[in-house]
């Protein structure tokens, strides 16, 4: 591996010496959390000049954070102010991006929200001169030796943060993900150092077993069980794979975690690899996630440079190489056997288990595949102990879980809560639905998940409780739906996705998803020239959907096919009347299904310009020029052309 070729400017020889000494201390964990002047320098507690932190992630990039970053740089060059600019990750409050933090010597670090490029100069003009524009200030970090800003709440007082339990996200948005010393100065890699020095392979597995950690990728398989199986398998070579190929549509927690705190994942992966005795580990992320790839590459390079990876790590005699592989993008590659095929240079098609990958995986060798969120838990488990971790959450589902909340919600965000927290709490943390709207359903688990209705939101979320109510944790993507969303359209969207992403190996999934999509399209299509046969098919639709869904669930080869009918089944259970409305009344109450809309002309607004009548493909619009027109409902095919061409907004639909 060609990682030593060019040195990273972030690590100086002094850093290297200091941190090597720290990690070699008799108790590295205690040493790294000690009050130490040098450590505080790395944690930026004591600073000599102003520091400006800009949150740069793939999420804030779309909000324009890179423009903000460039504007900050331009401002500093133009005004000649001597300040450091530090890149940080995401705090999880995606709706308030771009965010920048300002820290003046002796003052608390303060966070500003929605700093678009044009706001930068006025904001910095004030903030660097001890005057803060409070309307942009979100909060400030508590630090006893610093002087607080008046009128700005502390971060830990803001209900969004204090209602969460941030174990995995503790560094996100605070540390520089591109600089390993930030992570090290906050106790990073001490768990790895401790494990290499004090624990045997099996002891590590036992600690994780004690913590009852379960896979966060969706399956919820006990992590230690996988590890022990791989540890006990005899082989000359073992592999450890980190599945960082986040592919659920509408889920973004893994990406933000990797972009905000990449070293946590790498440390967890290194500990996992040690636990099973693997000397080769692979991070499988997606080629398209440019920033994630960039940050992980940088992080790996720095870890190699400090001797935390590679040959004879920290003089323990243990060797580990971590390679980053960029997946070409397929939803099914979230399944471990499919992921392994993809790494072998084949199509990502799942295989039947057993044999489990832990016995016969990549190139036929014992392999463990873990999701990144699972691995990110490992350093904390080692530091604080398995029992400590097992005490968080519910007895069967321990620890915390990150949810990405998006959709029709006031604030799109990442929240990390202990397992067992009700979904309603998650919705509440994200600010609820916009005021004039009503919460209709909460979709959890992406394309393989189901919908929960508002009445059932108070039940706890853990692996078992969700399955009991017919849901699936999935990877933790939560989409909030309000009354402007059509459930049939939602299910059609998921089925379209599944149909496209089905690998095609087993028939129930390949054909079942296509047939289901066809039925859903039939339900939502306007019946033009419909003969008796088609009408019958429509009526039979729902009955077919149910039986198809059951066949798919019971007979598909992998998780993708088995969970694919979940959106259909859960909406059939809770929103059956909406299906019936679509079929019998040919009405879509949310007005989303384009083909089922009936158009009307508002006589008040229509000027009789004839534009719609001329464009109408079925001549369904009649009238006399310069007086209001009229749409014949029977002839209308609901194409919406009239609405598009009307300059007076006189055409509306019900």
């Amino acid at each position, binding site marked *: 591996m060609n990682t030593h070729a060019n040195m990273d400017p972030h690590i100086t020889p002094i850093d290297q010496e200091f941190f090597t000494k720290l990690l070699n201390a008799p108790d590295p964990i205690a040493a790294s959390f000690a009050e130490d002047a040098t450590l505080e320098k790395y944690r930026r507690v004591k600073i000599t000049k102003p520091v400006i932190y800009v949150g740069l992630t793939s*999420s804030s990039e*779309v909000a324009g954070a890179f423009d903000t970053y460039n504007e900050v740089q331009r401002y500093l060059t133009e005004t000649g102010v001597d300040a450091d600019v530090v890149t940080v990750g995401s705090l999880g409050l995606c709706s308030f991006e771009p965010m920048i933090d300002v820290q003046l010597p002796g003052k608390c670090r303060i966070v500003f929200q929605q700093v678009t490029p044009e706001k930068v100069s006025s904001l910095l003009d004030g903030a660097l001169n001890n005057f803060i524009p409070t309307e942009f200030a979100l909060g400030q970090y508590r630090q006893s030796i610093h002087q607080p800003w008046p009128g700005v709440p502390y971060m830990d007082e803001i209900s969004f943060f204090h209602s969460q339990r941030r174990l995995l996200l503790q560094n996100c948005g605070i540390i520089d993900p591109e600089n390993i010393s930030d992570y090290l100065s906050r106790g990073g890699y001490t768990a790895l150092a401790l494990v290499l020095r004090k624990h045997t392979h099996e002891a590590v597995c036992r600690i994780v077993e004690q913590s009852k950690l379960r896979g966060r990728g969706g399956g919820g398989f006990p992590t230690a069980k996988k590890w022990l199986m791989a540890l006990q398998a005899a082989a000359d070579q073992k592999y450890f794979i980190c599945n960082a190929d986040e592919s659920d549509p509408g889920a973004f927690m893994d990406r933000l975690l990797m972009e905000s705190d990449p070293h946590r994942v790498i440390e967890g992966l290194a500990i996992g690899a040690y636990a099973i005795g693997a000397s080769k580990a692979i991070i499988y992320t997606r080629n*398209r996630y440019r920033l994630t790839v960039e940050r992980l590459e940088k992080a790996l390079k720095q870890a190699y440079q400090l001797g935390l990876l590679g040959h004879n790590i920290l003089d323990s005699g243990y060797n580990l190489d971590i390679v980053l592989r*960029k997946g*070409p*993008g397929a939803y099914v590659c979230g399944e471990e056997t499919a992921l392994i095929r993809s790494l072998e240079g084949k199509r990502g098609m799942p295989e039947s288990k057993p044999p489990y990958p832990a016995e016969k995986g990549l190139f036929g060798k014992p392999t463990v595949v873990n999701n990144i969120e699972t691995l990110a838990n490992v350093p904390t488990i080692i530091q604080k102990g398995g029992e400590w971790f097992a005490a968080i959450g519910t007895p069967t589902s321990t620890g915390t879980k990150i949810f990405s909340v998006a959709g029709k919600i006031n604030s799109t965000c990442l929240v990390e809560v202990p397992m067992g927290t009700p979904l309603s709490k998650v919705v509440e943390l994200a600010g609820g639905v916009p005021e004039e709207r009503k919460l209709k359903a909460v979709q959890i688990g992406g394309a393989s998940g189901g919908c929960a209705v508002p009445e059932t939101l108070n039940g706890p979320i853990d692996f078992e409780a969700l399955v009991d109510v017919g849901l699936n944790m999935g990877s933790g993507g939560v989409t909030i739906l309000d009354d402007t969303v059509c459930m049939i359209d*939602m299910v059609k969207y998921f089925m379209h*996705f599944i149909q496209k992403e089905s690998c095609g190996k087993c028939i129930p999934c390949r054909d079942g998803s296509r047939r289901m999509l066809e039925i859903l399209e039939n339900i939502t299509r306007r019946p033009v020239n419909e003969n008796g046969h088609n009408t019958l098919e429509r009526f039979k639709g729902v009955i077919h959907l149910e039986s198809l869904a059951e066949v798919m669930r019971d007979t598909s080869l992998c998780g993708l096919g088995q969970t694919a009918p979940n959106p259909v089944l859960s909406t059939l259970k809770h929103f059956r009347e909406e299906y019936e409305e679509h079929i019998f009344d040919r009405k879509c109450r949310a007005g989303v299904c384009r083909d089922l809309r009936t158009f009307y002309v508002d006589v008040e607004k229509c000027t009789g310009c004839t534009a719609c009548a001329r464009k109408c493909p079925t001549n369904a619009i009649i009238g006399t020029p310069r007086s209001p027109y009229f749409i014949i409902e029977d002839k209308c095919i609901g194409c919406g052309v009239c609405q598009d061409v009307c300059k007076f907004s006189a055409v509306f639909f019900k």
Partner: protein
Amino acid sequence: MRSRIESLLENYAHTKRDSLIPILQQIQDDLGYLSEEAVVLVGKHLDMPTSQIYGLATFYNQFRFEPKGKYHVQVCHGTACHVLGAQPILALLEKMLKIKDGQTSRDGQFSLQVMSCIGACAQAPAISINGKFYGKLTQERLKDIIDELKQH
């Protein structure tokens, strides 16, 4: 073209099938797409039938077989974007550019690609044109953006 692919393949001398995907990725990064010639050359290099390589490349979302347009338009179609109106945005784009997902317009100006999720759900619906992102898009703004690009 041929020499470029061949020089690229030199970096992968003595490799086996597991480097097939990285090879194809590098070719696509370099040329913007996988040409027929490239697929044939990779087949010869790895001693694999062309059909198998094509079968693999079509399996994954990343690979494309038409050159990118001058403006490569990527539309996010994640759940949040769908709920917040990605479908009308996509329909409008298809209408304005007269191409569908995965195609390139005849004059080579525009190419369109639907993505499963770009992870910026707070800015939904979002698109990216040649890597520059546009978030919280409305039909009107999209019209203006495309009209302006068409002028160039």
